[in-house]
């Protein structure tokens, strides 16, 4: 277990360093199309081959990792904080506040998000740089992804707010935000962590799907989502296993994070 953790930490360090230093590490620009060698197999020039437009896949993976590694957790954090606030307060206050908030959450969950996202895209100006588009995308995901988690958090917060130790805290004069922050939030941490780690890969994949709606990361900037979209047409990639590298990277990075953080942060 200890070994696994050390490996995970080392792996994450290498990946983050490589992606942060992509400008120096990457052998080519993520956007440059080597039009003489589209869909190439791995070679010395192109470690992971090239994509359908001849762009160096290794470089794209590096840059894409940077984008997703920074933004998906940021979006997940945003979603978890919103979930903690909404769910936590609703469960904590209880009564009609809880009923109203949860009804609103249910409504929020049942909204046709695709259409709303499309509307949002329609409202955005067309000439936005790819970097802005990716930030907007993840910010949107963060703003929309809280509802499911909020339900879970709310149920937990309700149970907690009826517990003896919260009663006792109240009897000691604690109340309101103070009580919420010092007594409820620490106990909600495991749930929030879980929600956070569920959201990270979900957001990465959601970003990929949004690309199909025209909402994702704009060309030519790569993200794990757009790299994963290469795997869409399964029938034509089976002969090119190196195309799976982004997928494997996603899986390994998410599980490494999980391994490192759950052990460090959770009490008990």
């Amino acid at each position, binding site marked *: 277990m200890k070994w696994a953790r050390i490996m995970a930490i080392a792996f994450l360090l290498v990946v983050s360093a490589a992606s942060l230093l992509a400008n120096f590490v990457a052998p080519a620009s993520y956007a440059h199309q080597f039009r003489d060698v589209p869909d190439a197999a791995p070679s010395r020039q192109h470690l992971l081959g090239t994509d359908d437009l001849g762009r160096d896949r290794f470089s794209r993976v590096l840059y894409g990792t940077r984008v997703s590694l920074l933004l998906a957790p940021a979006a997940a954090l945003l979603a978890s904080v919103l979930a903690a606030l909404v769910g936590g307060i609703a469960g904590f206050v209880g009564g009609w506040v809880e009923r109203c908030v949860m009804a609103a959450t249910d409504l929020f969950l049942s909204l046709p998000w695709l259409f709303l996202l499309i509307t949002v895209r329609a409202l955005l100006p067309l000439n936005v740089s790819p970097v802005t588009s990716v930030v907007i995308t993840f910010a949107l995901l963060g703003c929309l992804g809280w509802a499911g988690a909020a339900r879970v958090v709310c149920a937990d917060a309700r149970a907690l707010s009826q517990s003896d130790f919260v009663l006792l*805290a109240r*009897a*000691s004069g604690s109340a309101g935000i103070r009580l919420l922050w*010092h007594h409820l939030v620490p106990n909600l941490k495991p749930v929030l962590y879980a929600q956070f780690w569920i959201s990270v890969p979900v957001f990465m994949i959601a970003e990929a799907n949004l690309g199909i709606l025209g909402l994702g990361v704009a060309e030519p900037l790569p993200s794990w989502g757009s790299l994963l979209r290469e795997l869409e047409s399964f029938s034509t990639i089976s002969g090119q296993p190196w195309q799976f590298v982004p997928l494997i990277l996603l899986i390994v990075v998410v599980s490494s994070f999980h391994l490192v953080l759950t052990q460090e942060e959770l009490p008990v």
Partner: protein
Amino acid sequence: MDALLSLRVSGGYSGKPGVMRDLALELREREILGLVGQSGCGKSTLALAILKLLHLKGGKVEGSIRLKGRELMALGEREMRALRGSEIGLVLQSPMSSLNPALRIGTQLEEAWRVHRRGTHEECRRALLERLENVSLPAEPGFLKRYPSQLSVGQAQRVLIAMAVLHRPALLIADEPTSALDLITQSEILQLFASVRRQFGMTILYISHDLLSVATISDRMAVMHQGEIVECRPTAEIFREPAHPYTQELIRALPVVPQLAAAAGK
């Protein structure tokens, strides 16, 4: 002797009205008043009513509760908050569930301290260690670092008592503080209450369904039955000649009648 607390209340829950029916009780300065009654007769309801926290459980209360001459029923939530913990302390039945499992002991105590005090970390630390000493717990920083799961039940209850007396409240309400403990720990905790009263000179409302522990510790004893206090006199007197039929029944149910000379009589 002056009355520290005097109350006359009625109240209950929407599903169960009339848990307290014009219930009257008086606590004097520095006394330990034992409140006995069958399980489910409304003792805890009364405890929460005094703290004005009964609404948390969906209950309602009306009447009058005077603490040191102040009418609590007339106070707003903000003023009540200032009283809770500083003027009235509370200890609950189950020490394990009364401590927040996610927080270190030190954090919980510090939080309780900071609710009513401002001060440096050092001042706080000193206050906490002093209280640990008051309740005969190891007064060392290492202890403060522990999580509740690393304590024994008896230690946990001591921590809770330390927390309840942190601000030297005038009134300490202990709601069945020993019911969840084994016999040896029980007697240790009982002694601790006596010692706390001695050290801080506070009034204790000691609630229990267990007549024997009440007999050991209390100066006076109140018997609650069907929403009323049917009898409230010095403990020894009640044991000697219980007046109310319900009290008589309670005492008759005891295997032995305790010798009370030592515990009472102050």
